[in-house]
């Protein structure tokens, strides 16, 4: 259908431009602030033109927040979370879709319900478990048999502590379930006739077919993990395990320090970079994976 409605077109374009401005405006302010000197950034009214102190501010932010190791920590955590989430989501959706068990709907809804329980809600019990992973097991064994075990596993201040508690994903499981359900049953049956056992079918057929789906999930999950603040802040007390988001807080001016917003904005720009690169690199797959499945 082709419609010629110049006035309507202009109105819609105007609305779109306005929306774009709302989104990009703050980014522009971050950028200009990061290029100005301490005096310029605190001037009233705020000057929207870039200054000349950009490199200097970047350097200051990098050193002051010790961003080198922090970014590395964040990268390790985000990549591990991303990979872990994909593996876990693909396998649990496989179990839910392909195995006929009377409880599979129960399991699916249990997974689905965790969408309503984000980390922020369950942060205290999760911290408890992370501090002493085998506590429930010890309790169970002691109640059942009376034997007291001395199993201990403490996740605090470690990469496994940063990664494992946030690795379960209802969104990913759901995305994978929907994908599996679009595949024709004959494909499964053909693989059965060819002699493939379930795990073989999963690795040889399902995983390669889910490539777009997987990359879309990778994009979302990397950004999600990179942006984690609360959990790393709680988990890590040692500077060795500090992530970029936590390190960023040292750049935010407080009541006793100079209002160096130019440096903290420069820090924000640096930290924004890795997710931006990932999204830019994977956006083609990201869109395809969420919109439709490749045939």
């Amino acid at each position: 259908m082709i419609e010629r409605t110049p006035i309507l077109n202009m109105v819609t374009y105007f609305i779109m431009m306005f929306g774009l401005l709302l989104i990009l405006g703050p980014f522009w302010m971050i950028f200009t602030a990061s290029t100005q000197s301490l005096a310029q950034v605190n001037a009233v009214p705020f000057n929207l033109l870039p200054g000349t102190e950009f490199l200097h501010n970047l350097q200051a932010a990098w050193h002051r927040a010790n961003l080198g190791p922090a970014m590395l920590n964040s990268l390790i955590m985000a990549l591990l979370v991303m990979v872990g989430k994909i593996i876990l989501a693909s396998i649990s959706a496989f179990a839910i879709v392909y195995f006929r068990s009377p409880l599979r709907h129960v399991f699916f809804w249990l997974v689905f319900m965790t969408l309503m329980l984000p980390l922020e809600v369950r942060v205290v019990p999760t911290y408890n478990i992370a501090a002493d992973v085998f506590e429930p097991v010890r309790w169970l064994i002691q109640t059942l048999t009376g034997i007291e075990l001395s199993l201990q596993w403490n996740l605090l201040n470690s990469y496994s502590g940063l990664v494992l508690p946030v690795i379960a994903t209802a969104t990913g499981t759901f995305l994978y379930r929907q994908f599996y359900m679009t595949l024709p049953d004959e494909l499964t049956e053909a693989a059965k006739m060819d002699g493939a056992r379930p795990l073989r079918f999963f690795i040889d057929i399902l995983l390669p077919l889910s490539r777009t789906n997987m990359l879309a999930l990778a994009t979302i999950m990397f950004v999600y993990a990179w942006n984690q603040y609360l959990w790393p802040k709680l988990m890590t007390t040692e500077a060795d395990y500090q992530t970029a988001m936590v390190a960023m807080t040292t750049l935010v001016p407080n009541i006793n320090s100079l209002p160096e917003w130019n440096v903290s904005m420069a820090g924000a720009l640096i930290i924004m970079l890795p997710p931006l690169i990932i999204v830019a690199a994977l956006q083609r797959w990201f869109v395809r994976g969420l919109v439709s499945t490749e045939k």
Partner: protein
Amino acid sequence: MAEINIRNVRKSYGRTQILHGVDLDFKSGEFVVILGPSGCGKSTLLRMIAGLEEISAGEISIDGTVVNNLEPRDRGCSMVFQNYALYPHMNVAANIGYALKVAGVPRAERDRRISETARIVGLEEMLDRKPAQLSGGQRQRVAMGRAIIREPKVFLFDEPLSNLDAKLRVQMRVEIRRLHKRLSATSVFVTHDQVEAMTLADKLIVMNKGHVEQVGTPLEIYHRPRTRFVGTFIGSPAMNFFDSTIAPGGKFVLLDGIQIAIDPVLGRDNADNAVSAGIRPEHCRLVKAGTANSVPATVDFVEELGSGRNVHVDIDGTIFAVSGDESQLFKTGATVGLQLPSEHIHLFSRDTGLRLDDAPALKHTTNQSTVAA
């Protein structure tokens, strides 16, 4: 090569029964076609042989081994699916060779067998292509290559030709038959297309509503349909039927007062029975109105076929199809005579739908009643 024996096999989903006790035996190397309308249970039966569907009751054995509880991979069957079910991310070679890869056949041996199979199905030039780059017929060949590379004991075909266009279908039909001749593995082919069934089968099985209606060679089934359903289902245009009774004395059946001669022996045994008499369009003859032994009829409409024509005539409201040859020309509305040769008339019981001269139970009871009388 293997025999397949099916003993009293039933299938039900919850309370709904799909198959009501099927007994069949397929000889080793036979090409068996199972024919029936959609929903008759033919695909279910095939999938039960393959192991893709559980057997609710009864027993299926392949080569003397009961396979009820065997996984599909342990049954020695391979299957060609209606929509081909090729692995979209693998090229033709990988698709054909996947079963061997799973079985752990070494690479060199695998490649040798892939190229040999590709030669048989005519895909040597296509080995690097993905299924999406192939035409329907080529995909069908890949599916067949995938089935034959395992050198299975049994081939199962689940309506493999119904997604192809008419011309390709005829061509693939010939190829499947040729392939069977070459490999001579027992083949079971499910279809709803009677032409496919007639042309491919050594043994034809007609199914309806979860029952086996008739088993026989295509010609036996064509010439002596055991039930009224088989008579209607096979042949195009379909067999003509008229409800009538056998006249006292057993020499005629009556069609609205018109007498049509039948086999006197058969008639004597079944005198006064309500029957359904059938005759195939190609056995009816159209003659000039008023010719002896003819029934007056009106030409309703004519279908041109090129090699001949189907003339549909009206006898007191009953439409009869007649296959006419090219020499006869009829105008719509013309009055003609219809001859129904007695040797080609099939008589079925109107109650049971069974053929009269093929149903011992029916004959038996009528004989008794004759004795009693």
